[in-house]
């Protein structure tokens, strides 16, 4: 390095260059400042999510009901899968920090081994996220969407002993498929410059017909039940009126914090406003509830997943450089591994927040 820097006659003076007042190399410092700006980007996204959530505080989907899949088991398994993903990412963070530590001891073999484990951990995480997305996109029950963008889901009003709430019913189980003349228009079968997205599996009428045949079904709206006793005892007439409205249209107005299930009469009325059958999720519709919910899910977990993906790619590059001995020759205690490690830990750090705000809160 000395050969490339010309002498200026100020060596050894405070402003002569070569000083590290913060005791961190240029590269490491810039990695930190990049991470700071990236953290602000993620905060912006999460704060926007918070904004929308507070805006729709009385109707936001309940996370436990949306993310309730676990590989190899049916039924309701909230939380476990994301908890597992969290462990995987934290574990890969640990192998990364072990690689950094081994680098400080100039132990090439150990650095290689731990970098390898880190890459594997990252890959498993990405796979898990793909699985999570698949379930989210496919959906499990299906729902109707109204003109105003409200989601109407279906439940079985017949409750077994020990059930805390009414079970969801899949539209597949009751919709009567009608004869369809309408087929998806494709470019090859008509106007070549016109195309349309895939048609929904059922028409709204199919669902309503099926619903009318099964008297034990009811519609579940997005509205979360407030503390009805508190509203009734309130001095504000608006609160009392609100409580009366809830009690007149919902059968479970007393179940604070749960989605409201309409009475049979109200259900039939609500179905009149339905315009489209929705199953799973895309960027426009989703069966889980508020439209923004799906968008934020895709955008924030997607942005995080993209960070993980970049992290894995960078880790692979560094991994090969370690094997080739590039950092051994630099004789700076594998500082590059430390820098990429900072990025990798940051990805873990962001996931901790995503985990909290999407799955827990």
């Amino acid at each position, binding site marked *: 390095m000395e050969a490339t820097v010309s002498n200026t006659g100020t060596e050894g003076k405070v402003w002569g260059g070569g000083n590290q007042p913060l005791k961190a190399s240029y590269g490491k410092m810039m990695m930190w400042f990049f991470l*700071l700006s990236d953290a602000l980007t993620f905060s912006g996204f999460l*704060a926007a999510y918070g904004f929308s959530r507070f805006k729709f505080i009385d109707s936001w989907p309940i996370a*436990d009901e949306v993310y309730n899949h676990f590989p190899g088991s049916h039924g309701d398994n909230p939380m476990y899968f994301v908890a597992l993903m969290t462990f995987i990412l934290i574990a890969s963070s640990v192998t990364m920090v072990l690689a950094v530590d081994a680098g400080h001891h100039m132990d090439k073999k150990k650095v290689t081994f731990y970098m390898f484990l880190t890459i594997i951990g990252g890959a498993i995480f990405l796979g898990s996220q793909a699985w999570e997305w698949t379930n989210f996109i496919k959906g499990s029950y299906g729902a109707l969407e109204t003109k105003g963008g409200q989601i109407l889901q279906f439940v079985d009003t017949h409750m077994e002993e020990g059930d805390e709430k009414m079970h969801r019913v899949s539209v597949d189980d009751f919709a009567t498929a009608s004869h369809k003349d309408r087929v998806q228009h494709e470019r090859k079968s008509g106007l070549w410059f016109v195309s349309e997205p895939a048609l929904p599996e059922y028409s709204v009428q199919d669902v309503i017909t099926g619903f009318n045949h099964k008297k034990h079904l009811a519609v579940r709206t997005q509205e979360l039940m407030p503390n009805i006793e508190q509203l009734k005892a309130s001095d504000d007439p608006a609160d009392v009126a609100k409580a009366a409205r809830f009690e007149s249209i919902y059968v479970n107005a007393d179940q604070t914090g749960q989605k409201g299930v309409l009475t049979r009469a109200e259900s039939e009325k609500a179905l009149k406003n339905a315009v489209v059958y929705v199953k799973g999720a895309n960027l426009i519709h989703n069966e889980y509830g508020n439209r923004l919910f799906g968008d934020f899910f895709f955008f924030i977990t997607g942005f995080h997943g993209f960070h993980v993906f970049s992290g894995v790619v960078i880790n692979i590059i560094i991994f090969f450089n370690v094997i080739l001995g590039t950092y051994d020759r630099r004789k700076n205690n594998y500082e590059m591994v430390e820098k990429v490690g900072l990025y990798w830990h940051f990805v873990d750090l962001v996931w901790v927040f995503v985990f909290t705000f999407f799955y*827990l809160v």
Partner: protein
Amino acid sequence: MGHDNTHKLAIFRGTLKFKSNVQKIWGVLIFLSLITIVEVGFGIVKPGFLVDNYFLGMKLLNWVFIILTLVKAYYIAWDFMHLRDEKSSFRRAIVWTGIFLVAYLIFILLQEGTYIEGVKTNGFVKWNF
């Protein structure tokens, strides 16, 4: 460069001291896992006391989650990212910049979200049609 000497090996304000950096890493992993288990436990059990009581417009349970998350973030940044070993001025340049800006952003957006929710609920606008 005797790098091991530059690591600060105590966590919890010095109550828990580790013999080597590697040991500290495993110790922190155990701690982070414990917090995650507690979080998941709370998420599944949802104790009634924490769900029914509110503080600053949010359920106590959500406050618990957020505080535990910040604790996790602290240990990831301080021990995995070695902020504990950095010079304090460098550490502050990174951490406080972020905290100030994020706190401001969160305050503004959540305040505004709550306001719009109020307009939507109490105003004469039909949104559920």
